[in-house]
């Protein structure tokens, strides 16, 4: 159970917070804090908008997993490529997509990052090297591997960060991809965000192997398990992996142990888990812990933190307004972007 790791990480954090000097700069901590808060507040606003039926369809929020978003802003570069699944709002924001275009996308508006065509599951941004949120569980694992192949082919030093959930780790596509990536030494960083559940199914119920990082070992892929509730730990894990991959040694696999506080999507009451289990993660909430650490260790002042809080609040309110006031795409835009060929002859009867 995740509990073991969590207990370990809590005590680790307590030990750390008594240290006089932190390993990371004030700027880094503030950056982590800011992105985590942005994701949290963005998601809370999205849930509110959903309750008002301004957002429809599926909506899978990232609340609880923000430490991973934080580390993605510091442990990889803007030139690295990234692909993930449908639980992606936080990852997209970490890549640098702005809250306005993301919120507008959730609303299905033409000002959204994919012009209202993707909704919650499918943000994309070429500008941010963000290859999208994929709605087919596991589909992005070979795709990320192929993105890596293109980087290797062109001789760059960029990574293809390929993220997926614990549920996706049981798809055959993972095993095929891992094998080829390892054989061809592709520059791909596989990250499984193990939040304990795939919809209502716990990791323990899907396999004999509960520690997902062990999957890498049958391919001799360097693999490790890290604490996903701590931005420091995630940052360090990704940095280590990135260094390995950039040195040309091929893929790396990180199992990041995290938790989603909400149900799978808005319609899931999450009855398959206990209140105590949820509470044990709320107790080590990455945003609360980071805030406390910054204050306790005098990394930042209350003023610094309040300023970020105020900025984020204004930003998310603005994103909400922007999304609300933007127009829907025209129905005729259905015919845009199905083919690159501009005069493609659609069947129109």
């Amino acid at each position: 159970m995740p509990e073991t790791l969590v207990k370990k990480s809590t005590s680790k954090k307590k030990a750390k917070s008594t240290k006089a000097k932190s390993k990371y700069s004030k700027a880094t901590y503030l950056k982590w804090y800011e992105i985590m808060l942005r994701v949290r507040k963005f998601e809370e606003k999205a849930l509110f908008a959903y309750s008002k039926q301004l957002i429809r369809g599926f909506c899978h929020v990232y609340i609880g997993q923000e430490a991973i978003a934080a580390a993605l802003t510091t442990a990889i570069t803007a030139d690295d490529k990234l692909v993930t699944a449908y639980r992606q709002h936080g990852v997209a924001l970490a890549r640098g997509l702005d809250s306005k275009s993301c919120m507008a996308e959730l609303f299905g508006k033409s000002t959204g990052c994919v012009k209202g065509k993707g909704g919650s599951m499918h943000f994309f941004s070429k500008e941010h090297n963000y290859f999208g949120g994929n709605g087919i569980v596991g589909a992005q694992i070979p795709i990320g591997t192929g993105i890596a192949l293109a980087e290797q082919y062109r001789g760059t030093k960029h990574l293809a960060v390929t993220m997926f959930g614990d549920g996706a780790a049981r798809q055959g596509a993972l095993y095929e991809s891992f094998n080829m990536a390892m054989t061809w030494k592709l520059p791909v960083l596989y990250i499984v965000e193990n939040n304990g559940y795939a919809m209502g199914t716990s990791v323990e119920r899907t396999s004999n192997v509960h520690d997902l990082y062990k999957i890498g070992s049958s391919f001799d892929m360097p693999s490790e398990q890290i604490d996903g509730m701590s931005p420091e730990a995630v940052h360090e894990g990704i940095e280590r992996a990135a260094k390995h991959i950039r040195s040309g040694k091929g893929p790396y696999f990180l199992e990041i142990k995290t938790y989603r506080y909400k149900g799978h999507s808005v319609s899931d009451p999450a009855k398959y888990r206990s209140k105590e289990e949820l509470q044990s993660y709320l107790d080590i909430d990455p945003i609360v812990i980071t805030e406390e650490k910054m204050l306790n260790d005098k990394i930042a002042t209350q003023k610094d933190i309040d300023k970020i809080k105020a900025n984020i609040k204004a930003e998310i309110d603005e994103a909400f307004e922007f999304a609300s006031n933007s127009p829907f795409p025209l129905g005729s835009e259905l015919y845009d972007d199905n083919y690159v060929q501009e005069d493609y002859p659609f069947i129109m009867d």
Partner: protein
Amino acid sequence: MSRIINLREALREALQEEMRRDEDVFLMGEEVALYNGAYKVSKGMLDEFGAKRVIDTPIAELGFAGIGVGAAMNGLRPVVEFMTWNFAVLAFDQIVNNAAKTLSQSAGQYKCPIVFRGPSGSAGQLAQQHSQTFESWLANCPGLKVISCIDPADAKGLLKSAIRDDDPICMMESEALYGLKGEVPEGEYLVPIGKAAIRKEGTDVTLVSFNKMIEVTKKAAIELEKEGISAEVIDLRTIRPLDHETLVTSLKKTNRMVVIDESWPFAGVSAEIAYEMQKYAFDYLDAPVTRVNAADTSLGYAPTLVEEYLPNPSKVIKAVKEVLYVGS
């Protein structure tokens, strides 16, 4: 005697009755057991039949579909649930290359009595990957039978027939209409595979549809009636084999036909029906068979796109007026 229940309950009854009747029948899929089904079709079934017969799988469509095929070849009668048919695309290898071909490859020695089932079609603003229909895809493949029906009574009878059938069957349901209520007879009954149902008799035009588009079609027929146009409404229920006879008989009466089909137009169910009608009832046609399909595009998320994409009653009425050569 009958009572009003919804589609998900009707399907559940079919599964329960067949599992009580035959020990070899079991249900397998994502979230079917402990979670009681992603759309609650299998609610309570784990409690009744236990984990041996109501099996939760990991997210591994190719694997568990193939496991179903192997079990069927070896004498069991699996019902494999796909959370939606969009995800069954991962399993097409096993459905198309194995379930459909085992009998032929083994020269009749190994049959594959399996039912693959789940919802097909759009269900609101779910965007490109979650909004597709698969009747046309699978009906293209010899060796498979394809049923697609949302009427609770008929869906129940069809599913029971499918489970007893010795051939592999793909059944398409509707995520959006699991709650659809209908009168369902008490007690044991079957609905034959391969027979369409006439939902409303009429004389001026034949409207052919299936799955949730039948609701759109019925609404259009009511509107048309108000304008003095009498539409006959046929619910295909089975896509493959197509009930050729019912279609031709109706067309011979009305001389005009519109097919309302959520599949994409190219090589879709509507295209096959139009072909058959011109081939077998050419002399009876007073107008070309026409059709109302989903748009020839991927479906984006925004409500405006969904509206543009899907057939709706006004599009059907427009098509009917076209084949009747009346102005709208």
